[in-house]
């Protein structure tokens, strides 16, 4: 019996400890990349992205932009992103509509709750964007590309 006492006490002490196993990479974002006729490209001029025409500024005058990481709204069924490219003597503006469903992602009382999304449909205007392909509909903690934006 004495031989068992020490392991039993050790087990009891360990059982009293608690750890929080929250996901370390807990950023949920939409990832997108640009290409022209199948070749990855970057937008050299300043790129500004807003939510709708008057919504929050999501990207401010970024230059040499090859990829995007943008937040989606928690509860809206469709997000509207306005992309504006400003060169020395031109200004181009395109709008992307992302239709999605939203899923609550709850891990535990001690970890932040967030929302995952599933992209259902994407539409766009054609000032400088030719088309958009949804490569991964699930928007979650993963960082692989969701949208491939084909430029004109």
């Amino acid at each position: 019996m004495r031989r068992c006492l020490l392991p039993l006490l050790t087990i009891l002490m360990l059982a009293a400890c608690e750890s929080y196993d929250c996901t370390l990479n807990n950023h949920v974002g939409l990832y997108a990349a640009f290409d022209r006729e199948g070749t990855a490209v970057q937008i050299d001029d300043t790129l500004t992205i807003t939510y709708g025409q008057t919504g929050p500024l999501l990207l401010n005058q970024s230059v040499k932009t090859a990829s995007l990481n943008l937040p989606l709204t928690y509860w809206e069924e469709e997000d509207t992103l306005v992309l504006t490219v400003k060169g020395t003597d031109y200004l181009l503006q395109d709008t992307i509509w992302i239709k999605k469903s939203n899923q609550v992602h709850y891990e535990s009382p001690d970890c932040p709750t967030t929302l995952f999304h599933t992209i259902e449909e994407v539409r766009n205007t054609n000032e400088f964007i030719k088309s958009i392909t949804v490569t991964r509909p699930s928007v979650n903690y993963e960082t692989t590309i969701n949208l491939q934006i084909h430029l004109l």
Partner: protein
Amino acid sequence: MHGRKLVLLLMMVCLAATPLHAQEQTEPQQAAPAEAKATKPEKAPLLSGVAVSADLVGFIMRAMNAKFANMEVAARLNILDKYFPVAELGIGDCHREGAETGNTFDATSPYMRFGLDYNFNKKHNGNRLFAIFRYAFSSFKYDIGNETFTDPIYGNDTPVPLYLDGQKATAQWLEFGLGVETKLWRFIRLGWSIRYKARVGLSAPDEGVPYFVPGFGKNDSSGWGGTVNLVFDVGKSVRKAKAKSEAEIENKQKKNKE
């Protein structure tokens, strides 16, 4: 995880050491057959007793407003004072709020365990050393929520309360452990056990896995648990049977003398 493996190893060593200890106790009896004849090993009847018990830990944790508590009662048979088939029925209770997140979790649901205790102690002296095995399951409901839930980018700091009530889940797990039990007074006994729990199945909605599983504790692939049982022997005990057999022998001896 390394620490848990070490503890598991220690437990296995402990389990392995126990039969050796039992052998050590029996060896002197083999060395002295005459003595062994004189003190004939006690033979327990097939059905040596029935007992009901309650785990005091769960009730104490509930009274202390702990994060969660598993309150349970059990019934068991005593077969040959060696095998103890057990059924345990309990209610798991958890009310938890994240200190920094505002997330809440609430669950109050039943659970059941079935299994067997094996008594290593060959002497029927009221003390028992058990190896414990259980199969357990729980089908339960839980509520998760956050009253101050806010979209950090688009929400303008306006909370949109989040309520996901009545989420349904089922869980199954196995328990292995060691226990000791001793007689306190007449039919009242006190027992302690320590158990390793291995989850073998969990079915839960994608929106939110349960933080707590009734009977298992904090939801994880494995965990540890313990009980302090107050046991009431309500059936015939080994001692009663032994006393009866001794009385019968005495009667026979008297008759022979006459």
